């Protein structure tokens, strides 16, 4: 009871702390100087009612979840509790980790409001690379298919949005979906010839594919504008609210007018950052789920031993195709976002060096490891920025660092961790699961051993 009370108080305190800063204070310009003022009454009442709700929910959390469980079991499709308890350890993070993660995400969301415009922009770029790294990690790290043409799918995503917008005027969010789906489709198409190849041969074919896409984009001048690229790609909007000074489309209201605040180009940068963050969080979530699903395990099994996979009834072709398709889809999402952020794309942006960098991110981070990939993406995008003063020696340093990394930690920065599943220890000789003839005969043999 006591801990519950303290938990509820703590949660409410965090809420108050956050909301009072974000909602409770307003900045107003008084002549030349900025004055911090307490917001008007309606906002304060919102904050207080929010705090009350959070407090009550935290305090009665057990009862609420109990009630939810009951309704579910009365619906008749509840998971038997003993079994669901057991699976929980595999698929859910511990409480402490969840809290830490929530704080991290909250911190990342608040950060751009205090950071400089340049660093937010750089962070957005980093997030794009994180997404690309995570996507390629599926293909290379998990399924073990060396893909040197990953940038091709990135280009497909970017050009899908740019072209669909140019010819049909679709908006960013539809374009995001279309870009992802089209890239996935290209991944699927490429998957077919790739299925029979492995190792080096596969790498060469995918390398060729990446180049084909780029050269096609370069030469289909009528459709894609060739080397001139496509410009004036619209930025993402927030439920129809644009972030420009004046609405580009008739009847649209710009963001700042809708909320009655002054125009600032900084909002756009922050919004782009938040969209990228959202995409990365979604990517991490999806890949995390995939890893705990049969398909994710099948990818890894295929990387380890494809002959054993076949003998266990796994369809190699289907498993490889799914890895390629899903990996490509993430590149497509990243590409769409990239196009929207830049506002201008040309085949120049999708050269082989991009593929190499993304691959380096995956290898540097540790094959299959998500946190490693995120870390490596941050290093790979930030380091060139910080090393600008070294000018042309920058790439040399970069290469040297890679060489040393591979010598020092060939398994990557943070090697992948296996999911740990708690094994219930049972009293000797008693098996609590469905009685099978296994149980009786099994145990006497176990004792012999």
């Amino acid at each position, binding site marked *: 009871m006591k801990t519950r009370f303290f938990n509820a108080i703590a949660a409410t305190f965090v809420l108050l702390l956050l909301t009072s800063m974000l909602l409770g204070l307003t900045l107003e310009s008084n002549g030349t100087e900025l004055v911090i003022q307490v917001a008007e009454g309606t906002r304060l009442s919102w904050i207080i009612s929010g705090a009350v709700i959070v407090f009550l929910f935290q305090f009665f959390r057990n009862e609420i979840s109990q009630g939810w469980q009951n309704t*579910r079991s009365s619906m008749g*499709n*509840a*998971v*038997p509790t003993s*079994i*669901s308890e*057991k*699976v929980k350890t*595999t*698929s859910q993070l511990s409480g402490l980790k969840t809290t830490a993660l929530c704080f991290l995400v909250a911190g990342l969301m608040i950060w751009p409001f205090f950071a400089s415009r340049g660093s937010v922009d750089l962070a957005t770029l980093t997030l794009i690379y994180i997404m690309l790294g995570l996507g390629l990690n599926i293909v290379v790290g998990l399924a073990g298919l060396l893909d040197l043409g990953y940038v091709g799918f990135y280009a497909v995503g970017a050009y899908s949005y740019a072209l669909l917008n140019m010819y049909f005027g679709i908006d960013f969010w539809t374009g995001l979906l279309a870009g992802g789906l089209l890239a996935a489709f290209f991944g699927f198409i490429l998957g077919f010839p790739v299925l029979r190849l492995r190792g080096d041969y596969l790498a060469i074919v995918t390398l060729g594919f990446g180049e084909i896409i780029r050269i096609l984009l370069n030469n289909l001048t009528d459709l894609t504008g060739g080397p001139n690229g496509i410009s004036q790609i619209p930025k993402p909007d927030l439920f129809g609210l644009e972030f420009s000074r004046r609405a580009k489309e008739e009847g649209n209201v710009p963001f700042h007018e809708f909320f009655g605040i002054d125009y600032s180009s900084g909002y756009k940068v922050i919004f782009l950052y938040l969209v990228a963050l959202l995409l990365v969080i979604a990517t991490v979530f*999806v890949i995390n*789920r*995939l890893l*705990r*699903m*049969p*398909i994710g*395990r*099948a990818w*890894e*099994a295929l990387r*380890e*031993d494809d*002959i*054993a*996979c*076949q*003998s*266990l*009834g*796994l*369809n*190699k072709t289907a498993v490889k195709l799914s890895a390629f398709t899903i990996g490509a889809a993430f590149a497509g999402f990243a590409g769409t976002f990239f196009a929207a952020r830049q506002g201008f794309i040309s085949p120049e942006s999708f050269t082989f060096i991009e593929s190499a960098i993304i691959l380096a991110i995956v290898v540097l981070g540790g094959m299959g490891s998500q946190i490693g990939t995120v870390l490596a993406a941050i290093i790979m995008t930030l380091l060139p920025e910080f090393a600008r003063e070294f000018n042309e020696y920058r790439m040399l340093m970069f290469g040297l660092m890679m060489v040393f990394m591979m010598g020092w930690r060939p398994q990557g920065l943070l090697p992948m961790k*296996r*999911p*740990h*599943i708690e*094994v*219930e220890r049972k009293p000797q000789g008693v*098996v609590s*699961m*469905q009685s*099978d*003839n*296994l*149980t009786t*005969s*099994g145990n006497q*043999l*176990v004792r*012999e*051993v």
Partner: protein
Amino acid sequence: MSQPLLEASDLNMRFGGLVAVDNVALRVHSDEIISIIGPNGAGKTTVFNCLTGFYKPTAGTIRFKGEDIAGLPGHKISRKGIVRTFQHVRLFKDMTVLENLLVAQHRHMNTSLLAGLFNTPGFRRSEAMALDKAMQWLERVNLLDMANRNAGNLAYGQQRRLEIARCMVTRPDLLMLDEPAAGLNPKETEELDNLICELRDHHKVSVLLIEHDMQLVMGISDRIYVINQGRPLASGTPESVQNHPDVIKAYLGET
């Protein structure tokens, strides 16, 4: 006897000019342990590869439960209920023991993408059932303590046991073991002997075995096929094969 579980006849496998398998025929009935023996290079493993779809036999028919399966791809044959192990251990070494067993149950699980992404009750139930099955078999082969270890870190004998458990969680009708006792010490071989008998007696699985350990083979087999230089040499009960003059000649050489 009723319809055999597996029936291969006139099986031929040629690699260019080399005839690796020449008119081999064999039958496996339900709940039988059948062994294939023969000197090194006799073509035993090639027969296995033909039966399980790793090679497409040049000629001959293979019927499993009355259905022609010759030339089907490996994973399809496996799904019909024939699983095999390999001469060399082929585990997923960088995955945990438990994950090895979960991968093997792939086709029995809820593989729907959406169900998995949203972690629906149906998906969780399917995962939990697979986990239960894996636990049962781990307990049976005495590897429960190793469940979270990487399979590659197990001792050799444990890896062999895990491989059999991994086959069994796919719920096969016919288990094909390629030299399961190779590299095991006498005690482990005895355990293997017990395990194989148990599979037949309690799990309704027929076992087709390639093995060089004659003590094991003669002890547990219901029938034995002898292959020499790709050709069938003899077949029958352990006693009749042991005393067959051709078999003695093939193994001990011309005297």
